[in-house]
């Protein structure tokens, strides 16, 4: 028995919806709650959600006690300098 093609098509549709939602719409919400100024994060582009996470990965943006996310570093180069905190782990 072959896997139903409908399952494959449904998966592709859901995947595309998630990519569009995650890449565009939900990022605004994430960024609004971040409290970070756009001018503080020059690396910020339309993939804002993942950029914030990349920032978090590099210890650049972190969630603070009240649930907001704040930008700790202003520039990507500074985040890369902070990489050591994450990387050798």
């Amino acid at each position: 028995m072959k896997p139903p093609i409908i399952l494959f098509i449904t998966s592709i549709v859901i995947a595309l919806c998630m990519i569009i939602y995650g890449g565009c719409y939900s990022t605004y919400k994430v960024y609004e709650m971040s409290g970070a100024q756009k001018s503080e994060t020059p690396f910020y582009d339309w993939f804002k959600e993942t950029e914030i996470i990349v920032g978090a990965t590099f210890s650049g943006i972190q969630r603070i006690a009240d649930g907001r996310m704040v930008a700790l570093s202003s520039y990507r180069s500074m985040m890369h300098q902070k990489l050591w905190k994450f990387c050798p782990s």
Partner: protein
Amino acid sequence: MTLRKKVQILSAIALNSSFFFEFKSLCLPVLNCHSCPLAIFACPIGMIGQFSALHLFPFLIMGILLFFGALIGRLFCGWCCPFGLLQELLYKIPSPKIHIARHFEKLKYLILAVLVIALPFFFGSNTPFFFCKLCPPATIQSALPWAIIRQELPELIPGLLRVTLFLAVIILAAASLRAFCKILCPLGALMGMFNKFSLLFITKNNADCTRCKNCERECPMGITFDTNNSTNGRRSSECILCLECGRKCSASRSLGIRNSL
């Protein structure tokens, strides 16, 4: 050198050659550490862990994984993963070989659930047992290069733990082909779920199948004939579409979308 080996080598170079540009906003379904100084893309497992730590659902990353998974299953594992290539090379080292029991394969699902999702969710990404802080590919791609670049030693206990685990995985990979993929890789656990309905899969001519089970003996993932067989309609979540099973097979196996296993 086989086509797959050439693709693996080219992929390892391509994924780690960010001399002029990088796309760390995006990820591919490959366990390639984004903290590597030369990595182009983000690591999906690292990103999922970070999202978990921030209590956010990773729509974009999961969308990308689902998209690739539905289209090509675990093809990236077999053809593009740099750590998979390293393990295959390590296995060529003359050493005692062992067989890993199948029930250990469940361990990677536990790692995905606990070390990648639950621990960072409850304790944040700085918890010492967060997967990225132990990840063997990250040790060789990031921790060691950055230690050399920065000329600094990591913290003693986490550093020792990480290096010990890395050495254990290296030894295990030399003794059992793709041991890390079989029992530890959380990305393999995630992508394996998509094997069940992916468009691309291994195809074979059932009429020519003699049930010789040479495919079992050649499979680097230790998949048995009955768990990946078109005659009973089963697809294994462990299959990495490497086509090693077709080496001594009379049923003309290939990658395709028709008559797939």
